[in-house]
């Protein structure tokens, strides 16, 4: 059982949660993820860590309450317990040899991009951050980003705050303006990551995409998270979660992630009127 020590609501459906997980905190590095199970009946859900504190033995996640499990998780408060937390899983972000990086985050992906951008900047790498959101009220971590990176570019689809346009537009503009990035790192909806890779490809800029995939165990056992990268089958959990985005078969990944959409929709509708919250058992 993992006690929640801090909870912040970042927007109407985005949450910041810090909880006790000493085993995870002792070994966690930026880019790695955890798997949580909210209660006895819950799914195992992977989430990239936003931060960890070895001394306090805590881990922080930032998540959007979109599916049943994340909605249930968002109903927990400080002092409540998450039933299961496993990690750190996956490989850490590779930073060796990097000097100048552009990080591109979209929607919830910004929450996951934040620790990556901050981690890079903390080790002396020049970081430009392009953050895209649909509209002003969905913007999260604006102040944190400004603090953590060299240049922060805020984009909204409808122009309600920052510049109007997509992250891909801004990225192209920055490259065309003469910024020489050794690498672009992108975290966000697969469809956005796919187009970020399309932008960088003609310039020959290596582009790393952090993938979220359907998984169960997170240790390579189920094979549910397999992705096709450069024609080879890879497991997002043990070979990733970060891959060379220009080699990823995005269409198969997008289809795979949509596999349980119907079931999830049904489950989501049951969150409030059926159980009213997390079901403690035993």
């Amino acid at each position, binding site marked *: 059982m993992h006690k929640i020590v801090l909870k912040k609501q970042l927007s109407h459906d985005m949450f910041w949660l810090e909880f006790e997980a000493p085993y995870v905190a002792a070994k966690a590095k930026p880019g790695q993820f955890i798997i949580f199970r909210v209660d006895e009946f819950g799914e195992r859900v992977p989430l990239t860590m936003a931060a960890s504190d070895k001394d306090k033995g805590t881990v922080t996640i930032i998540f959007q309450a979109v599916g049943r499990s994340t909605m249930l998780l968002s109903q927990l408060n400080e002092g409540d317990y998450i039933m299961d937390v*496993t*990690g750190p899983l996956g490989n850490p972000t590779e930073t060796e040899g990097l000097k100048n990086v552009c990080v591109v985050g979209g929607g919830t992906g910004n929450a996951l991009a934040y620790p990556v951008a901050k981690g890079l900047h903390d080790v002396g790498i020049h970081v430009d951050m392009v953050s895209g959101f649909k509209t002003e009220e969905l913007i999260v971590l604006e102040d944190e980003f400004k603090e953590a990176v060299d240049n922060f570019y805020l984009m909204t689809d409808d122009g309600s705050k920052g510049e109007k346009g997509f992250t891909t537009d801004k990225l192209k503009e920055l490259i065309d303006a003469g910024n020489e990035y050794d690498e672009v790192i992108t975290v966000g909806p697969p469809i956005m990551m796919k187009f970020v890779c399309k932008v960088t490809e003609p310039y020959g800029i290596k582009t790393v995409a952090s993938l979220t995939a359907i998984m169960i165990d997170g240790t390579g056992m*189920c094979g549910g998270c397999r992705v096709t990268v450069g024609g080879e089958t890879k497991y997002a959990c043990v070979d990733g979660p970060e891959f060379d985005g220009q080699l990823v*078969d995005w269409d*198969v990944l997008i289809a*795979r992630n949509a596999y349980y959409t119907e079931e999830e929709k049904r489950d989501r509708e049951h969150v409030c009127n059926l159980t009213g919250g997390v079901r403690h058992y035993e």
Partner: protein
Amino acid sequence: MNNDVMKKTPMPSQEPDVRNRNFDEVALGYTEEMAIGEAKRCLNCKHKPCVSGCPVNVRIPEFIEQVANGEFEEAYKIITSTNSLPAICGRVCPQENQCEGKCVRGIKGEAVGVGRLERFVADWHKKHVGNKDVTEIESNGIKVAVIGSGPAGLACAGDLVNKGYKVTVLESLHKEGGVLVYGIPQFRLPKDIVAYEIETLAKKGVEFIHNVVVGKSIYIDDLFDEGYKAVFIGTGAGLPMFMNIEGENLVGVYSANEYLTRINLMKAYKDEYDTPIKRNKNVVVVGAGNVAMDAARCAKRMGADVHVVYRRSRAEMPARAEEIEHAEEEGIKFHLLNNPVRILGDENNCVNRIECIKMELGEPDASGRRRPIPIEGSEYIIEADAVIMALGTRLNNLIKRTTPNLELNERGGLLADENGKTSREGVFAGGDAVTGAATVIRAMGAGKKAATAMDEYLRGLGD
């Protein structure tokens, strides 16, 4: 002695057309009368061929004699002197290749139902004696760690705690039992039996910590730093194998591990659990081992029409005979001497059919089984909205990656001698992690051997 009864006492079971729609246990178990009757078929041979067929050398004729006399608790004591998990072994061991395969009664008729009797004795003990009087074993204070709570780890932990060690079992998933809980379905091995065995170990003083992935959450070296004097690695062979054919990454193509884990560990078949599972119409399972049978029978219970595709013939099917028979009775269709060529999908990248080719048997191959050869031009299509690959598993090297000087053998498993000693001092290993995918009982045998070797090693340290 029931010398004239050539056949095994039949096992009472749920009717095929009833059980293929529920997840309750298929075999219901012998009554006391049936057990005594079956036990009386044993010839009590002097040379005990059955014992030599058992990886943990259960004293078979001795326990059967006690069953014949109605002394069931005595029988239990005899079994558990060498086998700590009889309720599990009685259900899942491939007896026909082990004890029963060597039984003298099997020459003219059917072997004595050793597995069924073992199960009866274990169930009788659980029902009439239970573990309420099991108490903590006095500890010698020496800390040992067991990684993985599958059959190898549980057997090793059981023997070590009995020898007085302070045992901690580390499990990567949220529930203990390894393949016994994520792989083998409820209808073949009820999960309360696994939970009971784990509870018994806990009562004896074994500490279980779940959600710890050794190699990720903690490294082997950390365990020694924390004061553990010896470590047993029983992490199994977890990585699923695929065929590397076209279309294998289409949506709706599962590894058997994923399909079974969704159903067994995550209980996707129960409405109150959140883990999603598709209610498929036509499922093709590729492979013919026990895992393939489990996946096929689960898919049937989820309401699908199920087809098993296997490239060799009936004689080469690796599954237990009983599982194959049960699967056939439940209405699963077998396409033997057939091999998938490619998997095809629709515009959404979802699988909708599988192309197979007919095979014929040629000369024996390296495994001694006749090599299947494709018959040119015999390709045909099976409609399928899900394909489950049950082709075996290989070693997961998460621990190897973070443990210096831990060597692998030529098959990709951990290098260990016959007593489980690895290339690292104080580190032992056994079960599928060493041999590659095998059976529950072999893994248990390896766990027990390693426990003995660890005891010797630890005694040596004290000198």
